[in-house]
Each structure stands twice: as structure tokens, then as C-alpha cells.
């Protein structure tokens, strides 16, 4: 359905300076799949979406949707796709209804008149009360709903959502998530970029983790988590000052590299034999006089997956918590 082969993109910035946004990216998304492209800021997520939505041409490599090459036949690709998100925008000065009416007038004609089609989308996206207000008065969540409604209006085969929940408050984020889950349920192929691990985890069938413009891992959320061990032992220290000593003990007992997090007091490490390793850990920590607030065994999070894959803690650019 969606294929990228050796996709590369270099932007020229100023005198002779170049930025490589995509570096040999390979991707294959099946019909009806919801694929999350997960990566930190600047990893190349938006550039990939811009290429698929014909907004920018690749420097090298090929990208196609339903067999139509995005460079050779951008017009053909535009018939198939809907795009929404940070690289595209709706008009602030138009009302929600006018925005959708405009998109209806510029999209594949259906039996319905543009205005009726727009009104129908307004209803489906729960925007009836706001339909005649200018979008600049909308909340972030409402804007996002108009934006996604516009992308879906022509019933595209593929929907591209570029960071659909960035900057939204938790409640709006939940409503956008519900919306995306419904779409996936109806069989629309969706490509979603996100820097939120939780979002990729909850919504997607498959996650492509990208960093520095290439795919560094791919799989279902469960596969990705399993790839770094089925279980993790997690301890929370009472004092920051015990961090180094505790790290040493974790490393030795579990025979694996513990993951760092944003807090010096939260440590976790992959373990293979469940509670036995945890007991050994607790004994050693206790013997070293390190006081704990909490300890337990759990399944790994995508944070840790990302740390394993890239060697950088996700807390810099990749945030677990969208706030």
C-alpha cells in the first residue's frame, strides 16, 4: 500500500550547509494498517510525511502509495490521500463549516453539495455548536477535529496524521485518540507520526521507530517491548545520592545495563527470571544500606525500548508525557 525505498532527503540551508532529514528510510505499510512513526524532534518524521503527501520531493529513493510514485505522479497521489497535522493548516479566519466547505469544493466530487458534505462532517465530528464561529476562537482540540475532518472529507484511502496531538491538553488528546481508533476500526490506512510513546503504544498496529532519518526498529508494541526483555525490575530510591551505587548493583545482579530516567531515583533493568532476581537485588541493595521507597517487577515501557535502541534517554526530546 505505502512503500518507501531508500528514501533520503537533504535540505540545503544557507551557504553550502546541508541538513540530512531522511537517510535511507525504508518502510512498508499494509492496507488497513495503523502505523505509528515514532521518533524525537528532528528525527525525520515530518519530512517523511511531507514526501508521502507530495509537499516535498525526495533527494533520493522512491516513495509510492497504491503503486503511484509520489514524484512522478503527485496529482495521482493527492487523489488517494488525506493529510492533517503540523505541516498543513486550516484557515483561522474561516468558520469550521467554511473550512470544510472549501475543502469539499476542492476535493473529489460526490453526489452531495459541498456545503451539505461539510455540514455532515461537522455533525460527525461533534462541532455543531461551533460551526459558524471562526476557527481562531476554537480550542486546540476543536481545531484538530476540524483539521482531521478536512483530511477525511473526501474519504481517502490513506490518512496521514502528522503529530495529531502535539500541544493538546489531556482531554482533547483523549478525544483525538478515540477518533483515530474509530478510523482504524473502519479500515482506513493511517500513518501517524508522534513523539509520544504512549500514543504509539495505544493506537498503532505497528510502530516504526526512527532516529536520524532512518528506521531503527519496527514491530508491534508488544514485540518492541519484548525485544528488550519480557520483564523489568524497577526500584525507586529514597536518596539521589545512592544513584551510582544502586546502578552498580543493578548492573551486576541483572547482568544488563540499567535504564536511566529523568529522575536519579528511578532505576530499572531487564531481568530474565522474574522475582528471583528481584529478591537478590533487594538483598544486595539492603546490604549496601540503600533505602528504597518502592520496588517491583513489570513489563517494559516504550521509553526503555527507545533507550535501548538509541542509547539516549527519551527524556530530552522524546517525552512520555505529552504535557
Amino acid at each position, binding site marked *: 500500500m505505502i512503500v518507501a525505498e531508500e528514501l533520503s532527503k537533504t535540505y540545503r540551508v544557507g551557504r553550502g550547509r546541508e541538513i540530512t532529514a531522511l537517510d535511507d528510510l525504508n518502510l512498508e505499510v499494509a492496507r488497513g494498517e495503523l502505523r505509528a512513526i515514532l521518533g524525537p524532534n528532528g528525527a525525520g518524521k515530518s519530512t517523511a510525511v511531507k514526501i508521502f503527501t507530495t509537499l516535498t520531493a525526495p533527494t533520493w529513493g522512491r516513495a509510492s502509495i497504491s503503486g503511484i510514485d509520489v514524484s512522478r505522479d503527485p496529482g495521482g497521489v493527492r487523489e488517494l490521500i488525506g493529510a492533517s497535522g503540523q*505541516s498543513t493548516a486550516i484557515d483561522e479566519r474561516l468558520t469550521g463549516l467554511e473550512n470544510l466547505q472549501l475543502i469539499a469544493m476542492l476535493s473529489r*466530487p460526490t453526489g452531495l453539495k459541498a456545503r451539505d458534505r461539510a455540514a455532515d462532517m461537522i455533525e460527525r465530528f461533534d462541532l455543531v455548536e461551533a460551526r459558524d464561529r471562526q476557527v481562531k476562537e476554537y480550542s486546540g482540540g476543536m481545531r484538530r477535529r476540524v483539521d482531521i475532518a478536512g483530511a477525511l472529507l473526501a474519504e481517502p484511502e490513506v490518512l496521514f496524521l502528522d503529530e495529531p496531538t502535539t500541544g493538546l491538553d489531556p482531554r482533547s488528546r483523549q478525544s483525538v485518540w478515540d477518533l483515530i481508533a474509530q478510523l482504524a476500526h473502519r479500515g482506513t490506512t493511517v500513518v501517524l507520526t508522534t513523539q509520544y510513546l504512549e500514543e504509539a503504544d495505544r493506537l498503532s498496529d505497528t510502530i516504526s521507530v526512527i532516529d536520524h532519518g532512518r528506521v531503527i526498529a519496527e514491530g508491534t508494541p508488544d514485540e518492541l517491548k519484548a525485544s528488550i526483555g519480557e520483564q523489568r525490575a524497577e526500584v525507586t530510591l529514597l536518596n539521589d545520592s545512592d544513584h551510582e551505587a544502586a546502578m552498580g548493583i543493578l548492573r551486576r545482579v541483572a547482568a544488563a545495563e540499567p535504564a536511566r530516567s529523568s529522575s536519579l531515583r528511578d532505576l530499572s533493568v531487564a531481568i530474565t527470571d522474574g522475582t528471583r532476581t528481584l529478591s537478590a537485588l533487594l538483598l544486595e541493595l539492603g546490604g549496601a544500606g540503600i533505602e528504597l521507597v518502592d520496588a517491583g517487577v513489570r513489563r517494559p515501557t516504550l521509553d526503555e525500548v527507545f533507550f535501548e535502541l538509541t542509547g539516549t534517554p527519551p527524556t530530552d526530546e522524546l517525552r512520555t508525557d505529552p504535557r
Partner: protein
Amino acid sequence: MTAAPAPALDSERPRPRYDHRILAHSAALVWRNVIRIKREPSILAFTLIQPIIFVLLFSFVYSGVISIPGVNYTDFIMAGIFAQTIVFGATITASSLAQDLQSGFIARLRTLPINSAAVLIGRTGADLGVTLLSITVMILTGLAVGWRIRSDLVGALAGVGLLVLFAFAMSWLMVFLGLSVRNPEAITSASLLLLFPLTFVSEAFVPASTLPQPLHIIAEWNPVSALVYATRNLFGNLPAATAPETWLQSNAIGIITVSSLALLCVFIPLSVRRFARLNDRL
């Protein structure tokens, strides 16, 4: 995931194409741009109220001070105000387009199955509407303060037609500028810097002969002077018993017509091409 890397299968399904509906799409975008203009008071003030103020200002304030033999000053000045309003008004095309580029709205349009020329036609079409409105307002204000078209109906229509043609040509030049500069504030300030001397060091408000030497030559060869002279001629507002003195004056109508058409022939294709290659920015 399917293992089949042969996407050719999918594409064999014939698909109807809609990007030829360029007129309908242009009309839709004119509709959108007109709504925006109606909701943007600063644009309406600039194109409607400013010309009214200029007509009143020049006809009442300066007509007492400036006297040009053979014509009353209000008659003389109107062509200048028409030209000035049109030249300044054209910058709105560039800044509106740059604004739409900056906001990401044009990116949204570029993901839709439309012919990209429709976006530019929608812009210049809406701005042409604003020009017509602003010319109408100026004509009515002028008539109210005593300006008269001293030629005939044909001259009047030809004069308005020439102004509209020139405005449309300028608008396409500004489309190209907007696509190239892509910064609305820079466009506005740069064009004010350029256009103020261009309109004032011309025959818009005084005959070139009254200007000191270096300015005199600039005013004589200034394209705005040609536009003003041609309009003034068609409206019958030239000072009585004066003959064209320069090549520019003797051929003003032809020069403006030909150069407007030339601008259109150059900047329509250039702009469409530039629009299609908008993509290589980060």
C-alpha cells in the same frame, strides 16, 4: 504486511482525475479569499478608506496651493490617485500569499487534487475584485468633489479598463514576489520603500516639468508617469493646449497596454512554475 513489492497491481485500476476542474477550484478559492478580505478590516481600510482620504486631501488641501495651467487640480489629480492606489494595492496580493504560505494553509491546498494554478488564480481573482471595488469608490468620491470625465463614454471605459489591466498585471508580478520572498512583513515594508518614491517622483500629482533636474528625468521615464498620463488622457483630464512632450507620453496608452500584457505573459507561467517547486524548504 504483504510481501509483494509489486505495487503496479494497484495502479492498474483506472482512476478518475479531477485536477482539470480548474475554473471551479479557482472560484472556490476566490470565495475563500473574499471571505478573508471581508473579515480583515485592515485590508478594506487600506483599499477603500485610504483612496477616499487621498481624494479629499488632494482636492481640498492642495488644490488651493498647486495650480496647473489649463486644468483644475481636482481633474488633474484623480489619475494620479487611481494609479497610486492600484500600485500600492497590488502589494496586498504578495503579502496575503506570503501569509498563506507561512501559516501552512497553502501546504494544505497542495495535498488536495487540484491544479496548482487555481490557487494563484483564486488569489489574483479576489484581489481583482478588491481593485474594482476600490476604483468604484474612488470614482464616486471624485465625482462628489467635482471631478469630471471630460472625454466621452469610450474614453471613460478605456481609462477604467487600462487601470484594471495594469492592476491585474501588477497582481501577478506580486504573486511571484510573494512566492519568492515568503515573508509578509518584509514584503510590506520593502514595497513601501520602493513604491513611495516611485509614485511620488512621477507625474501623479504634479507635471514632471515642475520637478528639479534629476527628479525631472526620473519622473519622465517613470512607468507610473506613463500610467498616469494614459489615464489622464483617456479621461480628458490633461491640461488644455498641451501636447505630449516625451516618447513615453506620446505612446503612454500603448506602452501600458503592451507592458501589462508582457508582465502577464512572463509572470503567470513563472509563478505557476515557482509554485510547483515550492517544496524544497525545511
